[in-house]
């Protein structure tokens, strides 16, 4: 097996605020293989975006600090140890990022072509003409009609879907090995979301880049991802293949997430199942399992002891829940969970 593109080990990121320290990311570990599409799922405040931004060192210091852990890129460079000047060579060239809001992430005073060419010229020292020609190619890649005309337009002349295509083109401009997409379709309408997901799948197939997809939408995960990490309160609650997470989930939080999505064939007269309560305060995370307070299966042990990652049929699928301990009581997984009915 070749070296993974990215190896994240026990990453901890905190924000030092007036009121104290917010422990946004609390010991996250995962690997990403070359050409793999990994989804990080979680709700607001789960630490998914901070994790992704830390991979590119985009969270400002202060207030954020990497307290512990390493991010090994291609098995040799530790991203957490790089200086800002060194990071500038990595951003864009090695890793590209797509942000959620295409309205505010583009420069309103620059034409689309110049914005795409900017990164290319910076990293590859090409002439303006050559860089613009490449911008046209990139716009073609992301399915933009009339790319020769579009490069002379400003962001305000484009719709939300088109701006998101431009963002993808900018992120891809220097052939990065890793594309980080933070909620790339959340701000878009469903029919446009479907178009953008199509573009991302197409781009991944054509360029072979690895993708980390940050999202709260399990539908988007099912459509694009190969492997899934479920985050809760700054930690990895469960991780596994797409099939593991949807058809053999082993963490009650994953069950809750899967069950709270309405399905087109669900019974209208029954209540949606929801997860009671709210996530814990990350100024003072609980001592035991972070999910215990909301978990219908919580035991006394869960309130006292933070569970380790239990391997489920091998290291590729792990769940941070005591229910997977050999001595734990057997609970019936709610059978309507995701596709669990097919298992």
């Amino acid at each position: 097996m070749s070296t993974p593109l990215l190896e994240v080990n026990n990453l901890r990121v905190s924000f030092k605020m007036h009121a104290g320290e917010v422990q946004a990311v609390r010991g996250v570990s995962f690997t990403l293989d070359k050409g793999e599409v990994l989804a990080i799922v979680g709700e607001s405040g789960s630490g998914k975006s901070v994790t992704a931004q830390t991979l590119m060192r985009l969270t400002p210091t202060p207030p954020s600090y990497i307290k512990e852990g390493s991010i090994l890129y291609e098995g040799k460079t530790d991203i957490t140890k790089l200086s800002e000047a060194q990071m500038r060579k990595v951003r864009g060239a090695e890793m590209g990022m797509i942000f959620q809001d295409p309205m505010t992430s583009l420069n309103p005073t620059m034409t689309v072509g110049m914005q795409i060419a900017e990164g290319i010229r910076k990293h590859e020292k090409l002439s303006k003409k050559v860089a613009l020609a490449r911008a046209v190619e990139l716009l073609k890649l992301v399915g933009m009609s009339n790319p020769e005309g579009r490069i002379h337009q400003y962001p305000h002349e484009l719709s939300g879907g088109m701006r998101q295509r431009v963002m993808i083109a900018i992120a891809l401009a220097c052939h990065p090995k890793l594309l980080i997409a933070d909620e790339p379709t959340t701000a878009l309408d469903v029919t446009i979301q479907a178009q953008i997901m199509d573009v991302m799948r197409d781009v991944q197939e054509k360029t072979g880049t690895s993708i980390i997809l940050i999202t709260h939408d399990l539908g988007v995960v099912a459509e694009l991802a190969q492997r899934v990490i479920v985050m809760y309160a700054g930690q990895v609650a469960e991780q596994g293949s797409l099939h593991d997470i949807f058809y053999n989930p082993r963490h009650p939080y994953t069950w809750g997430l899967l069950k709270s999505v309405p399905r087109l064939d669900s019974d209208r007269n029954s209540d949606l199942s929801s997860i009671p309560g709210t996530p814990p305060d990350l100024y003072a995370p609980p001592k035991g399992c972070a999910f215990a307070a909301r978990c219908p299966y919580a035991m006394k042990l869960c309130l006292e002891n933070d569970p380790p990652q239990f391997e489920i049929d091998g290291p590729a699928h792990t769940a941070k829940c005591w229910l997977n301990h050999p001595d734990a009581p057997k609970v019936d997984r709610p059978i309507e969970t995701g596709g669990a009915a097919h298992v």
Partner: protein
Amino acid sequence: MSDAPILELTDLRKHFNLSGGRVLKAVDGLNFNVRRGETFGLVGESGCGKSTAGRTIMQLYEPTSGSIKFDGRDVSRLTKSERMKFTKEMQMVFQDPYASLNPRMTVGKIIGEGLEIHGLASGRKRTERVAELLDAVGLNEEHANRFPHEFSGGQRQRIGIARALAIEPKFIVADEPISALDVSVQAQVVNLFKKLQRERDLTYLFIAHDLAMVKHISDRIGVMYLGKLVEVADSDELNANPLHPYTQSLLSAIPLPDPEQQKSRERIILKGEIPSPLNPPSGCPFRTRCPHAMDVCAQTMPEFKEVKPGHFVACHLY
């Protein structure tokens, strides 16, 4: 549920005059009824006019033409005092639980304000009533003395719902009430809406862009595109048998949280984007993106007609 409509819209239009003599036809000829005790879901993408429709029904905008009948009365042109009576019957829950609560008022004041304005309760009675309402939406009495910033998004939306319920309206217009919330919290709030409806005989107009959620909460659904209704049907019928090509593509664009189902189904991915409502296409507004567009579609707007009992569609294919 009786079949007598509580709300009847006839050819409702709301046009906005913009600079340079341009006219934005946000809502352009809506015809539908909402039955007493049901939830009517209004769906569509950004800019389709669904929120404007909700606000016009609520009398936040004055309609350009057409009529709104509520409980048999025309309410589209009310005087100030008539409007006051009308707002007692109809209340609204807004999308953004952060922007729609006054940050300087305590929760008790926010919820109790309507009681005071309509002269329904004051003093101790008001405090009791607020406590009851907080309990009904799953919060508790002590929350009345706190300020909105002390609550999470889901809790704030519960406060917004308690405020809407305070003066015991018959009808609630909920404009994207869950789209700013996390998935697990969305489910909590949707369940709350359903519980309150059962307990209080409420009628809802539920406006949203998320067809999966709307399908779950609504008895009937109307689909809007560029200011016009393109299809209305019972929720199950719309899902099982969507007739309008736009409804078909909307349904197929929802990514299903099930990888195998997602892979095996056929998806219709629409070309292009919604045209500007300032310059809508001639004839059928959807024809520029429609996979079945014919010559006639560019010439005449298809009639909105009942093709099956209770199933209305505006499309030349039917």
